[in-house]
């Protein structure tokens, strides 16, 4: 039997506002517990919400970026349930009239193809606080700093078919929210969290199978593993003739398994109704157009432009465009050194490797775009070889100066003087009589040996093209 997995994702993105969705408390991450929870956040009696305009703008920004209908009138509702990290006993959310309606996202798959994934809706809501279970033996501690932080919940259609597609979708979403500047997207700190609805069915079936919801998966890697393991669990049950129970499950990354969270299931009846403390949020054309005008060039458009403007391959263009800072860096380098291919190779290759090793972002790179362009220029004008360039780059990373300064200080300038190269070659040939004999008797692979010796003598500085040419001429005699 061939099985197919059906996946829909609900992604919660913390919006990067300075203050909370309905109060003037700070949303800064990592503060001492309950130091950023004011009387409204604590749900003291008589306190009331007022909507943060920036959160609304960010939500609309996202909606426009996915080509969605913007809810001209969006409405807040109360979702009622008791939990100690939910001070009001209800979460203010949007049910019937979300701020963002249907839109879509194009994801790139490993085989180079693309798929368009539908986004059902996105709505604004409040984040909950945190329950700390470890600090006390008989009690749970409640920190309400996070309570009321604005979230955008983005709900996809059940159109993803593999765990890898789900990850590609998430990565695309991640790239987009960073582009839009609406979230820091930090998954480790919970700025982006993912719930996955997973079901399986036999290939060819038109009905969906019973789904389970896997809660709060907090890394791309875990999303892939959690979905894979959950689909496998469901397939095994079905193949054994069992039935899937619709329920909420938790992914345990240590054991790489999902397990039932039955406690959350007991009589879940959220009793949604209109939030009477807030009025309908009405957005006019001018509001939308102002936001549309401020949208940056988005990754898909940028990747296309990189292909046409810089003749990059689709792959290179897509990789570079995925991250806004990387794309900006690349463009600065390419414009400066006027060699897009070399710029792309360096940004995606040596620079990215170095940044990964240092665990810093490209904006914190010690080698600026101008400095990298300076290095590439010296490759282009044959001052140094690509190989020497790597040495220079290392020195640049260590803060030893510009490419030109390092080349000068270390005497790395390529030798292009034909006379000087001939002199080295003559000396090498004179000291390698046996190899010369071999070469002339037809063993042409010895040629590499001569090149090696010449480069060694020149300490890598001889221009490789000239070395080849002169060697060939001399050995041909």
């Amino acid at each position, binding site marked *: 039997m061939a099985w197919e997995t059906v996946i829909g994702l609900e992604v919660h993105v913390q919006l990067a506002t300075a203050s909370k969705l309905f109060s003037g408390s700070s949303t800064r991450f990592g503060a001492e517990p309950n130091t950023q*929870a004011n009387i409204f956040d604590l749900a003291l009696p008589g306190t009331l919400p007022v909507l943060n305009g920036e959160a609304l703008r960010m939500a609309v920004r996202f909606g426009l970026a996915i080509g969605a209908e913007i809810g001209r009138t969006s409405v807040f509702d109360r979702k009622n349930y008791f939990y100690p990290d939910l001070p009001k006993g209800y979460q203010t959310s949007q049910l019937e009239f979300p701020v963002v309606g249907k839109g879509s996202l194009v994801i790139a798959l490993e085989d180079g193809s693309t798929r368009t994934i539908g986004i059902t809706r996105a709505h604004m809501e409040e984040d909950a606080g945190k329950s700390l279970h470890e600090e006390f033996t008989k009690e*749970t501690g409640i920190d*309400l700093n996070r309570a009321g932080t604005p979230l955008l919940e983005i709900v996809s259609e059940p159109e993803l078919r593999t765990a890898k597609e789900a990850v590609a979708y998430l990565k695309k979403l991640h790239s987009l929210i960073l582009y839009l500047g609406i979230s820091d997207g930090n998954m480790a700190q919970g700025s982006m969290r993912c719930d996955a609805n997973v079901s399986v069915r036999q290939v060819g079936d038109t009905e969906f199978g019973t789904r389970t919801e896997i809660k709060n998966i907090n890394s791309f890697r875990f999303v892939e593993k959690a979905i894979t393991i959950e689909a496998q669990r469901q397939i095994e049950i079905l193949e054994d003739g069992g039935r899937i129970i619709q329920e909420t499950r938790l992914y345990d990354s240590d054991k790489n398994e999902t397990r039932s969270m039955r*406690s959350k299931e007991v009589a879940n009846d959220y009793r949604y109704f209109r939030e009477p403390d807030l009025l309908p949020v009405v957005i006019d054309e001018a509001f939308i157009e102002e936001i549309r005008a401020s949208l940056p060039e988005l990754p898909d458009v940028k990747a296309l432009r990189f292909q046409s403007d810089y003749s990059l391959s689709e792959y290179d263009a897509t990789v570079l465009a995925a991250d806004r800072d990387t794309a900006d860096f690349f463009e600065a380098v390419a414009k400066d050194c006027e060699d897009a291919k070399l710029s792309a190779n360096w940004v995606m290759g040596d620079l990215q490797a170095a940044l990964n090793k240092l665990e810093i972002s490209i904006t914190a790179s010690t080698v600026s775009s101008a400095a990298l362009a300076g290095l590439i220029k010296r490759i282009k004008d044959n001052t140094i070889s690509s190989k020497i360039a790597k040495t220079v780059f290392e020195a640049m990373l260590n803060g030893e100066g510009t490419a030109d300064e390092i080349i000068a200080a270390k005497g790395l300038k390529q030798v292009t003087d034909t006379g000087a190269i001939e002199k080295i070659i003559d000396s090498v040939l004179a000291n390698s009589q046996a190899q010369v004999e071999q070469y002339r008797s037809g063993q042409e692979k010895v040629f590499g040996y001569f090149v090696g010796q010449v480069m060694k003598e020149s300490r890598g500085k001889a221009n490789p093209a000239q070395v080849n040419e002169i060697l060939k001429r001399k050995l041909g005699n």
Partner: protein
Amino acid sequence: MAISQKDIETVAHLARLHLSENEEQEVLGSINSILAMIDQMQAVDTTNVEPLAHANDAARQRLREDVVTETNQRDNLLKLAPSAENGLFLVPKVIE
């Protein structure tokens, strides 16, 4: 519509109210008489009537500027709590 004993239990749980057996009986009776009064509404055809959530349904939500206006008031606020320690509100251990 009449409410059953079982409904009372479910609703009391949703509302997180402990009701003694006596209270359940009392509430069952009084809620049923209230529901009977409420059910007078059912006689009116409201098929095409738009629900009205706020008397002033032309009013629009005002937007607040995204500015942090609050300072740390933790010590004052935690004093109101029945149980707090190390800057945290305490509840009986929650088992996930």
